[in-house]
């Protein structure tokens, strides 16, 4: 009696652990993937991407700055930082014009977080890099060219 009861308790314990560690996080993972904007990541241009993100078009803004090298020695890793001074910035997106799909990364910026994110992207070739900002549900854009050079000896 006592023993089987103890077994039962143990089992529920295991289930509880599984639920908290495995099952729930898988569910969360699934939910997050659902949220991933497939259309935006498949878009082939700045305009298409902005449309997929819900905007009509993006207007040029001097309040967005892109920190990226003028020349990237290797396109596999290109450091890019975007700062937006536009009030109520909600999202920051990094696009590479000549990549097979333009959108590389998008960030949601809640209140209290600086509209300044830094990451590293891949570039297949020399291209314009666009930083798109969504603020008060309007879209803005700034652009900078990054040259990608060839590697060295032997290949």
């Amino acid at each position, binding site marked *: 009696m006592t023993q089987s009861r103890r077994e039962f308790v143990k089992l529920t314990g295991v289930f509880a652990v599984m639920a908290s560690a495995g099952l729930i996080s898988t569910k969360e993972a699934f939910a997050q993937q659902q949220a991933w904007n497939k259309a935006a990541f498949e878009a082939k241009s700045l305009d298409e991407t902005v449309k997929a993100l819900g905007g009509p078009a993006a207007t040029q803004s001097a309040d967005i700055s892109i920190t990226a090298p003028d020349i*990237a*020695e290797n396109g596999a*890793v290109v450091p890019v930082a975007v700062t937006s001074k536009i009030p109520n910035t909600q999202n920051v997106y990094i696009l590479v014009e000549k990549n097979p799909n333009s959108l590389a990364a998008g960030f949601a910026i809640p209140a209290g977080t600086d509209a300044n994110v830094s990451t590293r992207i891949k570039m297949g070739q020399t291209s314009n890099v666009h930083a798109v900002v969504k603020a008060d549900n309007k879209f803005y854009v700034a652009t900078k060219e990054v040259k990608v050079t060839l590697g060295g000896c032997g290949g």
Partner: protein
Amino acid sequence: MKGITRVALAGAALALSCTAALAQKETADAIARYRQLLQDGNPAELVAARGEALWKEKRGPKKTSLEQCDLGLGAGVVKGAYAQMPRYFADADQVMDYESRIVHCMVTLQGFDRATAAKNPYSGTGQRQTDIEALTAYGVELSRGVPVNIPQEHPKEKAAFDRGKQLFYMRAGPYDFSCASCHGVTGQRIRLQDLPNISQNKEDAARAFTTWPAYRVSQGTLRTMQWRLNDCFRQQRFPEPVFASPATVDLITFLGVNANGAKMDSPSIKR
């Protein structure tokens, strides 16, 4: 008339070469800026963290960790050891670099056979870092800021340096290249890549030795000094140097002694 044309032509040529030199300088500056932007957040940290876990894990037929491995400063001392290797080890009666010594400890402490321990030392594209790479990242991280001090006391240490120097200048293969073809003169470049002159103890040699191993962004992986030699020999059109073989240790000794006095700054991050 003729004279004037000549002067004008010379002037034009001068102006042209100045523009070219300026463009070259701008390019060099832009690339320096790129490299500087990369410094923050070196993924080699991820590799070193795994190396530390591997170092402490009980592994191999003997189910032992590497914590008693003697890297030249006594059993279990990792801090500062990388900066003083290659060195002579009495227990093996030979000079060993860090990577050779890791293999030695995997064999003697953990009971791996040598062929298994030294097999596939370098990770391929899209593969996980190898154990050797992770263990090397861990070790060199613990030598950051430590001055390079490769010993030259034992006759075998001196011989390693002298052989390493001879190999450095050895021209062979269908392209007639030696290490010195690219790394024997100061201020040279392949394409836009600066080639360090590592033939003598100067700033270049110091920077080269102290910044390997490095995370290579073009390959998305951490590369060790043994790999660095391996890939140079590939481009030299030589056959392949055997991992941790005597000639590789000799060459690393030559390069290391040429960097004596400089502070280790590795793992670094490179193009």
